[in-house]
């Protein structure tokens, strides 16, 4: 099944499915609504627990408001639900602790993740938040593959990794933001040093 044909329905754009299976309605933080099958939801530990706890009937699904997923936007959520529908019924993989971790990216997933790094970033956040183990595996594998054949300097650029000096500066800035008086004290100290004073107190 192609990515385009995956049975996730964006309510704004397509008709409501008429299948008798149980579907749930979810709403992204930008008010896009999706209908997702019960089986597909089982790929997400977070959503699965949520719908179990809610105990909705088919009528509830139609009559009550869609379940809000407040920190994921519609574009990302569409990818997530397309992935869940395509992989519905598949077993949740268990990590065997091997390194490098063996993760195959199926053709469907590769096409689904043929997206810019900004959206891939959001997809990983969503997979982590919704606890979709295999989606997290494949999306992380895609990011890991970016490191192949790269030198440390190239990795720094590929992954926007700060140097030790940059990390130190960021740590100092964070400390100062927490305690503005610390910066004042430091400036006062530096000023006294410039003036030749040998005692701060």
């Amino acid at each position, binding site marked *: 099944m192609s990515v385009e044909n995956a049975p996730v329905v964006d309510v704004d754009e397509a008709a409501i499915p008429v299948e008798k299976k149980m579907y749930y309605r979810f709403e992204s933080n930008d008010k896009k609504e999706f209908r997702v099958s019960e089986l597909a939801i089982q790929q997400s530990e977070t959503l699965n627990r949520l719908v179990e706890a809610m105990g909705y009937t088919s009528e509830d699904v139609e009559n009550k408001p869609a379940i809000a997923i407040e920190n994921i936007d519609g574009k990302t959520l569409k990818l997530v639900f397309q992935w869940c529908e395509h992989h519905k019924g598949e077993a949740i993989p268990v990590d065997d602790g*091997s390194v490098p971790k063996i993760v195959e990216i199926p053709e469907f997933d590769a096409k689904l993740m043929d997206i810019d790094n900004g959206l891939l970033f959001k997809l990983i956040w969503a997979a982590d938040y919704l606890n979709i183990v295999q989606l997290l595996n494949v999306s992380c594998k895609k990011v890991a593959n970016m490191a192949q054949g790269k030198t440390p300097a190239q990795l720094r650029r590929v992954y926007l*990794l700060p140097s030790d000096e940059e990390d130190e500066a960021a740590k100092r800035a964070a400390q100062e933001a927490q305690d503005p008086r610390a910066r004042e004290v430091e400036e006062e100290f530096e000023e006294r040093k410039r003036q030749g004073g040998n005692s701060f107190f």
Partner: protein
Amino acid sequence: MPFPLRRIPLLAIKEIIKSMDTRAIFFFSLVSKKSANFVMISIPKYSLSAEFIFKENGFLFELMPKDYIKHEVDIIPVFPTTVGNHSLFTRFSFGGLYVNCEWTYFSEVEESIRNLFYNYSRPFKNSKINMKFEAGTKEEFAMEIMRFAWDNGFPLDNIGFRVKNASPESIQELLNRCNEQHMSLHIGTQIPMGFKCTPPPGGYKFKSLSVNYAHWVNLDDFLQCRKVIFTTGFPDLTVEYLNDLLKKIVDVECRLQSFLFQLKSINPTDFTEIVEGLSESEIEQGEDWQELEFERKDGLKLLISLSNGYLDLEDDY
């Protein structure tokens, strides 16, 4: 467009690192202290194997998946580079599963090697760690490194201690602090003739212990090891002792199931008496060897052989 790795959840960062090939993990650990920390917390215990080889004028670091089998043909040759007081020779396997870095120093050797070891061992401290100290390494330096590894809880797996000479105190410390059922220890060091070993209660329990200069060994202290190799200077054992030992092994009264002893006083004619009562099978023999297959109580097949003054018990033949 770069990928802002540090801004994703920690669980995802760990997943990404675990999914990288060994070469990428190694290079990632070199980017910054924080990257090294991420590697340290991401790699599950014993999933990688790290080997540190200390040489007279250099240091070799190898990193690979735990069950990786090294094939020289797979390794891409790289020309060495010389920077400052050292040359560096880095090689990787095709596919990036195997990393090999070798430094050769022209000055400040110990200090440089110490720093390299501290830097490279930290991110990979959850790996199965093998350490080898070659003949030119100084005893004090080797023991300093060993103490660092013990004190930091490194999961040591295999130690090769081949420094030229070592004090009784160092050997005793090495034996007692390495004494674990999963540990392999090789002591290739010349040991003072007066050395008396003080075993822990219950004796030693190494997976494998190999000693080149074995004049100090009392075999009774090592019967709970799985495999022992005692060669030069190993005190003579009587035929009766050896026959009793083999019967204990058959009755699983000790953990020992493989050994190699260099025995000066044992003659080929003694073999029949050594193996008496072990098996109904006939002794096989050639011009300068004799062997007998027998079975332990639990069904483990063993082969005992005598050849050129070496008595050899094999459990995997």
